[in-house]
């Protein structure tokens, strides 16, 4: 009854405060709050016999089913089209996207996703092509892949590119498998088993090296946020297969010893894998091929603007040096006097492909979007974009460094790293600070990565953001910092307050995982 009374009291008033001016709006009868809808699971909206697709009800015999006809129902819920459209529209409204606001997630390059890219990917004659069409019927598709490969090779200053990897980590796998194949080709597979990985590396790097059967040896950083050159050199030996170095690195800094590192690893008989996640800082200004690398993946979904889609799909083409090019996986496109053709099998190759990484020929839909982006920007626009990305990160650094603790001094590249020193003795953690940003309408930066500084806050603004957006962001962060320094830790601990859900219990989720919907017991019994 007391609940009902509180509802009565709220009638005709907006946002009746409950327990303080920042408290959430009162509960509603429906559970929805204005434009924020309470939305059940599709399984909870189901009625048997309802469908959102009209298909003929044909019956088929058992003769050609090998005795394997399904006996039970699948259990999929029944919904009509308007219900489905509304359901997923409402779910979308619970998400933050680049279209919604500033998304400074470090190392993720959340830049604008142009819609002409989407249009191009859906064109008749591209989006509807079947991967096993005769090659004679897909000459335009192979031309597109070859054109994108040309742009990638030119921007990277590298002689070859393997196009098929499906994402950044898949590209890492491609690069490290090429290195492994080259080492096997030299007859050193049994001895060169160690891969050097800086401690600031993304987790995919050591995971990839392990997936290729290498052991991982961590290289310490120096106090400038770079690889400790002497420590690195001390680890070299004839058991080293290579180094996996991110450049610009995950601290947002250019590894200024990169050429020395390349020379040293080559002298030791190893190869140089460069993680190209941060290529957006240097496109059109520095060619990785001029740094002495042997292979590097590009995240087309970062640098070349294809949508992240809530976690993929991506594409991770890998550029390769002369030394590694012969080992590129199948399939690949060849252009000769008879047009374009596909080399789909190791036996058809005149090189030494190490194998195959995925079904068919690569992430064509992502290729189309990336090429569309490259053609739109052109060489001049790509250079301006990378320059603006670096300018934006340095602007954040310059405008925040007096109140927040920049981890390493000097100019940064396209992202800037802060640590949690500025929050010392405030009782506010990096996580709390990030959650308070959500209430201010900003997506948080990358938190607690890289691992080389305490409580990392890694911000990557990209070239897509205007000065006005950056200024509001700066003003907001400065204001939040004032609040933290003023001792209002509870404000941060309770954030976010204005989101569809408040802080979620991740520990409980992991301890007793509930990974799918199941029919509630009482309902299941009632149905029987």
């Amino acid at each position: 009854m007391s609940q009902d009374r509180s509802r009565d009291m709220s009638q005709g008033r907006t946002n009746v405060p409950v327990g303080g001016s920042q408290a959430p709006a009162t509960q509603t009868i429906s559970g929805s709050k204005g434009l924020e809808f309470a939305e059940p699971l599709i399984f909870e909206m189901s009625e048997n016999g309802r469908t959102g697709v009209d298909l003929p009800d044909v019956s088929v015999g058992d003769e050609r089913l090998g005795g394997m006809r399904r006996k039970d129902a699948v259990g999929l819920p029944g919904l009509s089209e308007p219900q489905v459209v509304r359901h997923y529209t409402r779910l979308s409204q619970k998400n933050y996207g680049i279209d919604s606001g500033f998304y400074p997630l470090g190392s993720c390059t959340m830049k604008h996703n142009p819609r002409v890219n989407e249009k191009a990917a859906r064109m008749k004659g591209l989006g509807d092509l079947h991967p096993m069409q005769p090659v004679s019927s897909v000459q335009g598709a192979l031309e597109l892949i070859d054109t994108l490969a040309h742009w990638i090779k030119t921007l990277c200053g590298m002689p070859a590119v393997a196009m098929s990897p499906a994402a950044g980590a898949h590209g890492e796998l491609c690069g490290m498998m090429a290195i492994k194949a080259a080492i096997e080709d030299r007859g050193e597979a049994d001895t060169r088993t160690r891969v050097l990985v800086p401690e600031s590396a993304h987790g995919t790097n050591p995971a990839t090296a392990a997936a290729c059967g290498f052991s991982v040896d961590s290289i310490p950083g120096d106090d400038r946020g770079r690889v400790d050159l002497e420590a690195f050199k001390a680890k070299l030996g004839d058991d080293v297969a290579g180094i996996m170095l991110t450049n610009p690195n995950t601290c947002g800094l250019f590894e200024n010893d990169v050429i020395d590192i390349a020379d040293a690893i080559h002298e030791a008989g190893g190869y140089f894998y460069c993680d190209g996640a941060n290529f957006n800082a240097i496109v059109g200004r520095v060619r990785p091929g001029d740094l002495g690398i042997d292979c590097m993946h590009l995240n087309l979904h970062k640098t070349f603007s294809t949508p992240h889609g809530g976690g993929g799909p991506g594409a991770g083409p890998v550029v390769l040096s002369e030394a590694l090019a012969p080992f590129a996986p199948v399939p690949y496109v060849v252009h000769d006097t008879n047009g374009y053709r596909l080399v789909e099998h190791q036996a058809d190759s005149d090189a030494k492909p190490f194998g195959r990484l995925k079904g068919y020929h690569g992430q064509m839909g992502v290729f189309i979007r990336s090429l569309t982006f490259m053609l739109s920007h052109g060489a001049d626009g790509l250079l301006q974009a990378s320059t603006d990305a670096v300018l934006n990160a340095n602007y954040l650094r310059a405008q925040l460094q007096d109140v927040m603790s920049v981890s390493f001094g000097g100019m940064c590249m396209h992202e800037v790293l802060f640590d949690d020193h500025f929050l010392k003795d405030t009782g506010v953690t990096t996580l709390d600070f990030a959650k308070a940003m959500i209430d201010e309408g900003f997506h948080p930066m990358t938190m607690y990565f890289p691992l080389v500084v305490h409580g990392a806050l890694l911000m990557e603004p990209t070239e897509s953001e205007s000065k006005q957006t950056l200024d509001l962001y700066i003003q907001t962060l400065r204001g939040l910092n004032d609040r933290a320094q003023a001792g209002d830790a509870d404000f941060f601990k309770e954030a976010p307050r204005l989101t569809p859900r408040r802080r979620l219990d991740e520990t409980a989720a992991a301890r007793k995982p509930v990974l799918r919907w199941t029919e509630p017991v009482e309902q299941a019994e009632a149905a029987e």
Partner: protein
Amino acid sequence: MRYLPHTENDRRAMLAAIDAERVEDMYCDVPKAALLSQPVDLPGHAGEMEVEQTIAAMAAKNLSPSSAPCFLGAGAYRHHVPASVDYLIQRGEFLTAYTPYQPEVSQGTLQYLYEFQTQVALMTGMEVANASMYDGATATAEAVMMACRATRKNRAVLAGGIHPHYFDVTKTSAHSLNIELVHPDSDPTRPADPASVTDLIDEQTSCVVVQSPDMFGRIIDLAPIAEAAHAKGALLVAVTTEVVSLGLLEAPGNQGADIVAAEGQSLGNALSYGGPYVGLFATTQKLVRQMPGRVAGETQDVEGQRGWVLTLSTREQHIRREKATSNICTNSGLCALAFTIHASLLGEEGFTRLARLNHAKACQLADKLAAVAGVEVMNDSFFNEFTVKLSKPAHDVVEALAERGILGGVPITRMLPERSDLENFMLVAATETNTDADMDTLVSALKEVL
């Protein structure tokens, strides 16, 4: 430049704010020798219309399956995707979101992943599923690696009827980890024989990988293979390249599968010349902590409201680094969303009807082709795809059909080039998109060509 908000005034003001005179000052840490002194040799920027024209010119050089009768399958199937699917996945809040690391502002992504996981589990008859892999081939490779981890054995038996790309991807991964693969040939002129794989299982075998329908379209009874595998302490990995088949055929989970790896492209996703697609990965509750990839789980927020988060992340590379169950990070989120919306629209009734319709279309096509001189249908059983033996090499037939504007089938030797004994064999698929007129066009063309 339409994508860049800064004016020259903005840039000047910002350079001043960072104490730089010129943009080059920001690149002071780059070795001088590595800085380009002139622009890269590529064309300059272009307007949206010009870019569209350039891409459209390439598209025009291809034979579009939207205008050509298309009977291609081999792991990628042309289905009708309802218009609302493509509309919904292009909502910016889905399209332009990152992996849901901040659950409070990612409940949309997390809830649809949870719905996706449930749908995949239901279709495959398994207890749990992950939030997607790159495609069916990489899902299969991950399944083999997971089986090796779970059983601490290093040998896998892959049935001859596995899609050759799936086998090649698995072989490539297995090589790096010294996993021994056993892979017998398969003979499409005879019904699949479970003994061809069960005889190869020994005490060192981590898993048996069987695809059904297999690459020749034959439907395989997994139960006896599961029994033989389990008797030797091995797992059964069931593979499906056509997820629509699960609307008519027994779910692998009901036949003893421990892991299911499948391609989900058929629901919601464009053919797109082979990618991006969506790998489905399902397993048992017992093995869940060995599972690769992202997974969404249910929990509560501080107010006790139900919500979802990414969970079991202690398996993953960002926590475990070199000890992770997989190096996968970005997967196929948006393709999983397309799958989920299409499956939600279909529901039980639509999904099972779609499956029956596909089988009916394939039966109709098989009957029509069997009546053509020079065509022999090899399959006793099939779902929506089967193998025919032609009186001429399949490669030549396929080219001759393409010249007539027909995408007639996939030569088996395109996938298995070493099997010259199968030179005259072709894989043919039919789906709900194939009309009677399409089939008659194919039949008359084959009569001319053969």
